[in-house]
């Protein structure tokens, strides 16, 4: 990649692959810390522009710097700031420059670098990182454009591939299966047995998916009430579970009961009351909450946690198969970004500007009487040279690489030099 005006993109980062939790915790930044850190970086002149992406799984500092050795200075800055040994910090992190840094951000935004491949949250986190940097006054032309481009490329990947389509979480898979039995799952009665961690997780998922009739039963009634209040559901007495089955379309078993909570005869009785309308059971408890012979009853569907985990594994493979297509899209976008970035140098901009002026001159000359053309051309060239001399001298003399880029970008924009 050509580095215009000696400006280099770089990224310094620590993520779930490179760094153990102890280091990652120390370099996890809050929003205020991000702004403070960025100001520090810019004020000390380590970078002319900077953006910090900080999520549960990664902390990455993107910058535009004058030299190629800014990485070490950045590491020193972070180690002083967070009170970490620089060698340990450098050993736990990674460092990329130029095209590689831009490629890394594109992959991050598209979810290709995420722990759960293809997840979409990171796209919002990248966007938020740009907003914070803008608030801190740390971005200008290049990083602003880079991050916007990365977000757009990430969106394109989500739209054109199936990388974000197949759910990976166990509740999402369970409800995906249930949604293929019932027409409109949100209008159905969902009964969650157990108000422990798993029960709450499923209840929350159902509630977020728009479930309108969510019931929670727990042996200790207070916990059911508490969990129901948290997700907008209704607590039902533990003693009436067998009765509740008659209403329930989807039943999630997630208690820590040592014996089965839902017995076959309960379900048979419920099915009689339901006049054969289907029932869908998810059993996530170990040992099982729902007698496995329930699956033999007509129109009853039952899945255990193993089934759902197999689907998750299969979905991970499905997402992985989309990676080459996603990478091809990212490369295409990356090349367009790099072409734009490469054009931000003084020389091609000056050449482009001269060409644009020559075009205007020729268009005007064509309308002039033939006899006057030679004299008019001389005049136009002299005027153009005078007009361009001072701005070009100042542009070349600018020592701050970021300011230089800003000005080049302004000229390219005002004279429409990037028109194809």
């Amino acid at each position, binding site marked *: 990649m050509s580095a215009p005006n000696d400006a280099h993109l770089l990224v310094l980062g620590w993520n779930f692959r490179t760094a153990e939790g102890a280091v990652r915790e120390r370099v996890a930044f809050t929003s205020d810390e991000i702004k403070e850190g960025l100001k520090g970086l810019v004020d000390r002149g380590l970078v002319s522009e900077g953006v910090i992406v900080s999520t549960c799984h990664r902390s990455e500092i993107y910058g535009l710097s004058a030299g190629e050795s800014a990485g070490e200075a950045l590491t020193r800055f972070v180690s002083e700031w967070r009170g970490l040994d620089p060698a340990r910090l450098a050993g736990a992190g990674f460092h990329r420059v130029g095209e590689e840094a831009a490629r890394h951000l594109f992959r991050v935004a598209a979810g290709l670098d995420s722990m759960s491949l293809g997840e979409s949250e990171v796209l919002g986190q990248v966007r938020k990182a740009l907003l914070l940097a803008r608030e801190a006054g740390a971005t200008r032309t290049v990083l602003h454009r880079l991050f916007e481009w990365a977000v757009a490329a990430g969106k394109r990947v989500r739209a054109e591939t199936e990388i974000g389509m197949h759910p990976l979480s166990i509740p999402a898979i369970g409800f995906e299966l249930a949604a293929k*039995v*019932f027409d409109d799952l949100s209008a159905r009665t969902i009964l969650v047995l157990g108000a422990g961690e798993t029960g709450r997780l499923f209840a929350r998922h159902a509630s977020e998916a728009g479930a309108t009739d969510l019931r929670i039963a727990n042996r200790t009634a207070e916990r059911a009430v508490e969990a129901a209040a948290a997700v907008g559901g209704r607590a039902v007495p533990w003693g009436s579970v067998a009765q509740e089955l008659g209403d329930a379309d989807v039943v999630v078993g997630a208690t820590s009961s040592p014996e089965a909570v839902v017995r076959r005869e309960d379900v048979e009785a419920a099915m009689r009351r339901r006049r*054969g309308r*289907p029932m869908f059971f998810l059993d996530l408890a170990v040992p099982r909450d729902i007698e496995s012979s329930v699956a033999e009853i007509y129109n009853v*569907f039952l899945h255990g946690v193993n089934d759902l985990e197999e689907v998750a594994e299969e*979905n991970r493979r499905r997402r992985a198969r989309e990676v080459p297509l996603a990478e091809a899209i990212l490369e295409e976008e990356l090349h367009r970004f790099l072409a734009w970035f490469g054009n931000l140098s003084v020389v091609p901009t000056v050449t482009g500007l001269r060409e644009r002026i020559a075009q205007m001159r020729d268009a005007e000359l064509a309308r002039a009487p033939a006899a006057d053309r030679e004299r008019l051309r001389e005049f136009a060239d002299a005027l153009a040279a005078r007009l361009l001399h001072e701005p070009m001298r100042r542009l070349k003399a600018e020592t701050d690489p970021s300011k230089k880029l800003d000005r080049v970008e302004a000229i390219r924009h005002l004279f429409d030099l990037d028109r194809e």
Partner: protein
Amino acid sequence: MDWHLLGWLAVLLYALAEVLSIVALLRPRGWGAAPAALGAALVLQFVDLEVRARALGSVPYRTLAGSMSLFGWMLGVAYLILLARHRERAIGPFLIPFVILFSTVGLLIPFRPSPPRPETQGVLFALHVTLAILGYAAFTLSFVLSLLYLIQSRQIRRARTGVLFSRLPALEVIGRMNRTAVSIGVAALLVSVALGAVWARRVWSGVGDAKLAWAVFTLLLYAFLLWKDRHGWKGQRVAVLSLVGFGLVIFSYTFVNLYFSHAHTFR
């Protein structure tokens, strides 16, 4: 205009619609041009049927060839209506082959125009045959929907969440579409049988015929299906019953017509 050419062009367009609907099924987004190809094919086949009717001097389905073509056409129309109503594109790849099959058979069977006989003319006869064919087309639709129901049900049970799983609608939706198809089929066949009885009394002064017996048997089976669907059998058993019913329809359409019936031979 050569009716054969038009008919084959229609089949070609059905084949194109099939390919397009398979592509639309596999792609995550976009509708593709399948409905357009299907619509164009239906128009061509209609013109073809019209040309045949003129050559015969009566409704085109008093020949086996014409009857098969009309069957294919009605199935296509029924699917287009379903497409417009439910937006369920996953049905197409499974249904259009039947349209192609019946339309092709209708083209391959020799078409011999013979002078029309008095009992194959008139509005009553036309309605009788059209409704019967509409009924059978609806039962064919139900057959395809039932197959899809069983496939989808199996995928849910085995937690196989592949392309077909994600594209096929929920079991309840397929079941509802199936109920609609069977209801239309039963209503159409019932009216057709009644009209047939009136017509037979008028032209032969008698109604006893093997075809009639089969039709009544078929009606009873589908009526039983509808009743059971409301009373506890909703689901796989109803789907299996519909498969059996379709067997009866095919038997009635082929063997009964060709070997057992006196009144329902094609002439």
